[in-house]
């Protein structure tokens, strides 16, 4: 199962990005292989629809779970439609690695 964690940087030690549609990177963590790859979000500066585009990307990558700070209504509708689980983490000071550790546990 694949999980996306919104990240402010390109590696596991980067800070978790609480924004969903405008997160800098998406960390795609594979729970079977325990490996993570980083995908750049190309819509961080979009005028409109950043959340929608992020949700489209998530579904396209066949991800089942997303961890972010919050989800806007349009992104939420789309993720719901494809049964992607949304997990809200409100910690400001947490790295991607720390979230991955919790997933492994």
């Amino acid at each position, binding site marked *: 199962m694949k999980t996306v964690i919104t990240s402010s940087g390109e590696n596991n030690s980067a800070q978790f990005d609480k924004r969903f549609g405008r997160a800098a990177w998406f960390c795609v963590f594979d729970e079977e292989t325990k490996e993570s790859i980083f995908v750049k979000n190309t*819509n961080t500066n*979009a*005028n*409109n*629809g*950043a959340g*929608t*585009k992020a*949700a*489209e990307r998530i*579904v*396209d990558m*066949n991800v089942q779970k997303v961890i972010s700070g919050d989800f806007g209504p*349009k992104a939420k509708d*789309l993720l719901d439609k*494809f049964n992607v689980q949304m997990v809200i983490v409100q910690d400001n000071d947490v790295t991607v690695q720390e979230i991955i550790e919790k997933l492994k546990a």
Partner: protein
Amino acid sequence: MSYKIAIASGKGGTGKTTVSVNLFKRLNERQGTKVQLVDCDVEEPNDIIFFCDAEVIDVQEVSQKVPEIDSEKCTFCRKCVEYCEFNAIVVLPTVSFAEINPTLCHSCGACSVACEDDAIIKYYKPIGAIHYYKTKENNGLAEGKLEIGSTMQTKLIRELKKKISDQNDIIIYDAPPGTSCPVVETIHDSDYLILVAEPTLFGLHDLKLMVALVREIGLEFGVVINKVGLGDNDIYEYLVNEHIELLGEIPFSKEYASLYAEGEITGEIPETIHQSYTEILDTLNLKMMHHEGNHHFKW
């Protein structure tokens, strides 16, 4: 040809509506001049509040074309997604999913141009209405009223302005607050722009934004300072330094504010305020007379 006067401000609550309605009613005192007031603040049109005997004479619905994707015909090529400037289209080939989000769509039509499979269907969605009122004074009032939830202010303003007869001698556009697209749509083709400002820190800040905008568009404009006596004098210094014409000043008056709250902004108003409008009107008269095409005016 009508002489078009737009009233805008940048900051909200400086007195656009007060100045618009006052000018409209005062221009009525000039015999034979046809004036129409157009409330372009479509999110919250409130000029009508000050015309207690106005009668609705017509209501016209305004719609936008909204596209939808026919997933039977769609080949999920994603060309429309690339064309869409507003990120309104989601196409997921792997799950044969294609959808346009109507709240993000600006009805530009690019997706129809992009689609080679004839999969874009259009339907009409109401965005608001144009209300026409007969008023005791002049050629009446027209206003745009945006549908709750719609984000198509600019389009509604454009449609509203198109409907206003060019047979008027003068058209007054009461603009929405701010400096964004709906304001640009309201003011861009005006012959003269009145910026209503207040002598406060926020008032000056937003006036500067507005001046930058109107200089970019290239409009002739002047400033009316409302609520004089509040705040400080920085705004005067700014106007002098920028060589901006001060059309008039309206003193701050608690008495006038209470009259306003009762819906009375033009009748029994304090003499000083009445006098301010007389001065503004005199200046406006000169502007209109110097305007090319002024031979239409019957002064």
